[in-house]
């Protein structure tokens, strides 16, 4: 009995440092955010007061909030499947025995190593009308002069393309690692059985990659809601909120408008949304994933 107690205490003591840090930097802020979302924003001598669900009611009537939600969904739908498919394609490609393989792998991975702000500035130049890279190429075909970032219909897509370019290389690394784990004997067996390469990929390789796909998918979903540095650097949410994403709007509300109460409410919405996605992915997809 005494021994079990001391083992228990021992265990808890070992957990304490990590638990304390988590509590201080993750759990306390989360709880405080939820609490603040029910309170008004303090201003000078006017302290914050309890206002119940007022911040959430404001949100329902806030067109920019809804615009940001819709933008974010388009952004997620535009970036997640494309970057994962591209990552898989690149991984399969550089997994083969070909000359300059190391160089190719590095080239694909380079965008991931660059800081987001640097990437954003590079792409800002690509998209510049007239003398930007894209317009210069278009000019060879007698077109160009197109204001990519300054037009509502194209601005969000410009950001989506840039994100896919940046993310695909990162996901490729995971796929590449997973591909190398697949024993070559499977491929040999399949070719003995006369299976085509596509059939082998579809029925053997792809199912074996499922755990990686799940992991990458969760990361991609979180990233699509979590990364806004490039929006800040490229368009600042404009033109007329066409590229405002949820987290960008949250940042703007909390740190530009200094409406911390409303900012907290937006944070709670984002947390709930991400939590729901993560749970859904774990409970739904996890059952379909084949772990070895």
């Amino acid at each position: 009995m005494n021994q079990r107690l001391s083992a228990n205490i021992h265990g808890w003591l070992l957990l304490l440092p990590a638990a304390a840090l988590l509590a201080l930097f993750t759990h306390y802020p989360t709880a405080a955010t939820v609490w603040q979302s029910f309170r008004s924003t303090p201003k000078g001598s006017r302290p914050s007061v309890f206002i119940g669900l007022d911040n959430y009611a404001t949100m329902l009537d806030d067109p920019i909030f809804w615009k940001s939600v819709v933008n974010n969904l388009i952004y997620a739908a535009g970036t997640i499947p494309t970057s994962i498919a591209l990552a898989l394609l690149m991984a399969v490609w550089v997994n083969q025995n070909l000359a300059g393989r190391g160089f190719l792998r590095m080239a694909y991975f380079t965008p991931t190593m660059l800081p987001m702000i640097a990437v954003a500035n590079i792409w800002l130049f690509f998209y510049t009308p007239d003398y930007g890279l894209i317009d210069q190429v278009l000019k060879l075909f007698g077109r160009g002069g197109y204001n990519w970032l300054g037009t509502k219909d194209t601005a969000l897509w410009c950001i989506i393309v840039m994100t896919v370019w940046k993310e695909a290389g990162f996901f490729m690394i995971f796929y590449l690692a997973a591909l190398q784990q697949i024993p070559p004997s499977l491929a040999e067996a399949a070719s003995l059985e006369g299976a085509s390469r596509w059939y082998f990929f579809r029925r053997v390789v792809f199912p074996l990659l499922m755990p990686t796909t799940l992991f990458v998918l969760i990361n991609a979903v979180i990233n699509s809601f979590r990364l806004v540095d490039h929006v800040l650097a490229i368009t600042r949410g404009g033109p007329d909120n066409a590229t405002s994403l949820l987290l960008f709007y949250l940042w703007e509300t909390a740190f530009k408008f200094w409406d911390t109460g409303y900012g907290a409410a937006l944070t709670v919405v984002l947390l709930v949304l991400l939590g729901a996605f993560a749970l859904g992915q774990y409970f739904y997809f996890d059952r379909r994933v084949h772990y070895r």
Partner: protein
Amino acid sequence: MSFISVRGLKLALAGGALLGMASTQPSAALAQNLSFYYPVAVGGPITKLIDALASDFEKENPGIKIKPVYTGSYQDTIAKTLTALRGGEPPHFAVILSTDMYTLIDEEAIVAYEDMVKTDADKAWLKSFFPGFMENSQTGGKTWGIPFQRSTVVLYWNKELFKEAGLNPDKPPATWAEMLDYAKKLTKKGSTGNVTQWGVQVPSSGFPYWLFQGFTTENDVRLMNAAGTETYYDKPAVIEALQFWVDLSRKHQVHPPGIVEWGTTPKDFFEKKIAMMWTTTGNLTNVRANAKFDFGVAMLPANKRRGSPTGGGNFYVFKKSSPAEREAAVKFAKWATQPERAAQWGIDTGYVAVTAAAWDTPKMKAYVAGFPAAAVARDQLPHAVAELSTHENQRVTRALDDGLQAALTGTKTPEQAMTDAQREAERILKPYRR
């Protein structure tokens, strides 16, 4: 979430400070140690200039130590200041946008200069600045900011392209009609019908309201009242001004379509993609260094009158400070705006020297004689008005920005866009009218 974790972090840091650094505190009582936040918003070695300013001041004023803290852009600076304020440790003084005045007052963060200055010489100092700059620095009969790095909007034109188009290269457009007429002559199309050179460009990304104020002031209408509690976005003259801007690209096709990036506008000018541009005087040194052709600088063209908004940053002194610290901060602001220093600062950076006396210094006179374009901003100052600034400033200007971008991209008519913007501003400002 992160703004709360900042508080958590502060808590942790305070804990660390209690444990480790408690012993260092008493020794600081002798000298005045002032922390000073400042932003960098234009090109050039600004941080070096500021450090030199601080060390020169320390040499002349032993007993006062200035600790300049570079805090990023204007936006970052106000963010860091307000975060520090909520953490209980704001800087002693800072350079922050003149338009953040109401925000800082509402946060009860700053002290009015009238409550700090005592001598007649100091009171005269408060009156020594160009009135155009003081509009954004005073409200409710008190002075809250001292102009330091200030600017206005001017028109730059490419003299070579003017010559090519058969225009007099030394005569900039003086009116809207002239600007439109010149722009039509300066717009060139390639063989396939796409435009290779635009007549004029007014950037509209980020903070279009500032350049828009050029149009509205010239159309003789104000966007807000002096108390910062009302906006007039939907007045007919405002809509008319926006219609003119929109027509430049949509109707006359002499201005690039859509939203034009602020940051690449000078580059467009250097690349001869545009023949005329509207941008800040703060770009003067940049254009002088990079334009490979003869260029001119002029006041913005007039419609009903001349006009431009002012812009840039002021010195603010923070409330959470001892009387001795406030005195030292005022002393620094006064020292940095002395005619010679203000003149040198203007020459080094391209900002408009903030007092008339600074323009009368021999150094400035010699500079203007060699580079007359530098004086255009000063000459425009009598026509200049305060930059748009109200309570809840960021939100109220954002409503206008959204409206402007909607009209410029063609999603709304100017009238619809301004009516919507005004409705939004009304909603935000209502609580401040009581």
